[in-house]
């Protein structure tokens, strides 16, 4: 699970900065990771077992972890990083894979991508690091505990692909998989007492050499002011059609 800026955030950049301006940002659980957690909770309700939340990031991530625990995760592991370390998806995936290996697993669930860096890589990279099969962008998941296999539907462009794989496996969640629950007040109280094991990034002994390096950030160029077309609907429509033909060349 990753903590990300709320999707309503207006992104600001300092000149020359390689990270966004984080002052005043509201941090939330990555929306796709909420679907993953919800699916884990439902599987636990059906089959028993334990849901362990694993998150990586600075101290602020604790808030997201408590929210995840309030949704119903049993306990959590927080890989605590400091801002001096230049992280990329590769390093994050290696760290998460190590924690997963220590914890043990039948199934590893995560979001199809984080809505901040949009890389959509951590799930598959964790799968490779642990030698597991993967199914990404999953909108429906069925587990057969007897045969220890899964059957998942994943979303392609204009199609649904049904994938079967043995457990353990990595599954990444897409919107539509489920409707995440809201934490209840008693569960929010309970979450405060649940175990959060902190693992210092430094203790993992990973060499901080990112494979993908950000050279610079920029904002999208401003669009020229809109041409507002006036007149009655027919006139406006005619003028718009003309512009689409003569300027956008699409008709």
């Amino acid at each position, binding site marked *: 699970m990753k903590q990300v800026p709320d*999707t*309503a*955030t207006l*992104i600001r950049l300092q000149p020359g900065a390689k990270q*966004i301006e984080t002052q005043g940002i509201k941090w939330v659980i990555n929306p796709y990771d909420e679907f993953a957690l919800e699916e884990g909770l439902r599987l636990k309700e059906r089959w028993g077992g334990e849901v362990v939340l694993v998150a990586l990031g600075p101290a602020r991530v604790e808030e997201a972890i408590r929210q995840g625990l309030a949704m119903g995760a049993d306990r959590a592991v927080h890989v605590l990083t400091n801002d001096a370390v230049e992280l990329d*998806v*590769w390093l994050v995936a290696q760290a998460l894979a190590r924690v997963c290996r220590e914890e043990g697993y039948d199934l590893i669930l995560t979001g199809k991508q984080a*809505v901040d*860096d*949009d*890389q*959509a*890589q951590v799930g*598959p*990279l964790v799968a490779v*690091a642990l030698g597991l*099969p*993967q*199914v*990404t962008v999953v909108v429906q998941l069925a587990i057969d505990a007897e045969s220890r296999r899964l059957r998942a539907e*994943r979303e*392609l*462009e*204009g*199609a*649904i*692909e*049904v*994938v*079967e*794989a043995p457990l353990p496996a990595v599954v990444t969640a897409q*919107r539509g998989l489920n409707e995440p629950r809201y934490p209840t007040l008693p569960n929010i109280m309970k979450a405060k007492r649940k175990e959060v094991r902190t693992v210092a990034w430094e203790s993992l002994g990973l060499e901080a*050499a*990112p*494979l*993908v*390096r*950000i*050279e610079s*950030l*920029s*904002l*999208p160029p401003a*669009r020229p002011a*809109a*041409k*507002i*077309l*006036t007149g009655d*609907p*027919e006139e*406006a*429509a*005619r003028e*718009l*059609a003309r512009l*689409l*033909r003569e300027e*956008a060349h699409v*008709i």
Partner: protein
Amino acid sequence: MPEGIVVVTPQEGGRVRRVAYEMVSLAQGLAPGAVTAVTFGPEAEATASALGKYGADQVVALNGPAYQRYSSDGFALAVQALIDHVDPEAVFFPATAWGKDLAPRVAGLLQAGLASDCIAVTRGSDGRLQAVRPIYAGKAFATVSIQSQRQLFSIRPNIQAIVEHGRAGTLLPFTPSVDPSAFQAVAVEVRSQASDKPDLTEAEIIVSGGRGIKAPENFRLLEDLADALGAALGSSRPVADEGWVPHSYHIGQTGKVVSPTVYFAIGISGAIQHLAGISGAKYIVAINNDPEAPIFKAANYGIVGDLFQVVPALTAEIRRMKENA
């Protein structure tokens, strides 16, 4: 010294999606060295001449029994073997559901850096490749470089013109030795969601509706316009959440991110998450009865008015233009 670019693409019935031609064209423009396309499954070799025409110097068709059905782990090992064999500088994947599943798997095996969903790949002054990729769904852009010897990129559809190179695209025989037991996750079925419309992420024109359409049945007006234009249909998030349209229509930061030539935002106010998802559109057309709607700030053309009058008038006008053309 690694040289050339490998382009990894799916195919179906001997045909590839347009993004495959975009990738080989992009690769041909960047390479010293050969552009090698690899594709999988029955009739894979039939793609050679078309891929060659747009820039592939050689085509590897993995059409053995193991490659008849997609398997992320099996295919990734085969791509890894091919990359070891060809020794390219870079590898391109399409930033589609298929490519975004396979690319990180290959990156993990190669321990190589992968930049996802790139909208530009150029050669930097140091001779290495550089990519621009949207972050925060397009609210910002990152220019990235890859530090590993192999440089992997997934390429967003619609960002590169296809260029005819008039080559033949010779078939390169190659049989990776991948243990059949490695094909663990296997696609057992693909259900096509019957639609005569282009896919959102590849569409040149998108007609998209929001709360302003007032009721699900009114989406028909947008369908008529989309039919007239040959456009794909999309929606804002509230309309998808209400169940008026499938989730797959939802465009925005937590839905599809699109880059059409023209995007019609009809009855869409323009929440920041929605604007992020459409920032790659070349032209944005806003039709909304609220002149203060934020969508007008993002739009190139705006009509402040009643969509129930404007949209049918526009559909009729476009039909008339096309008939007269």
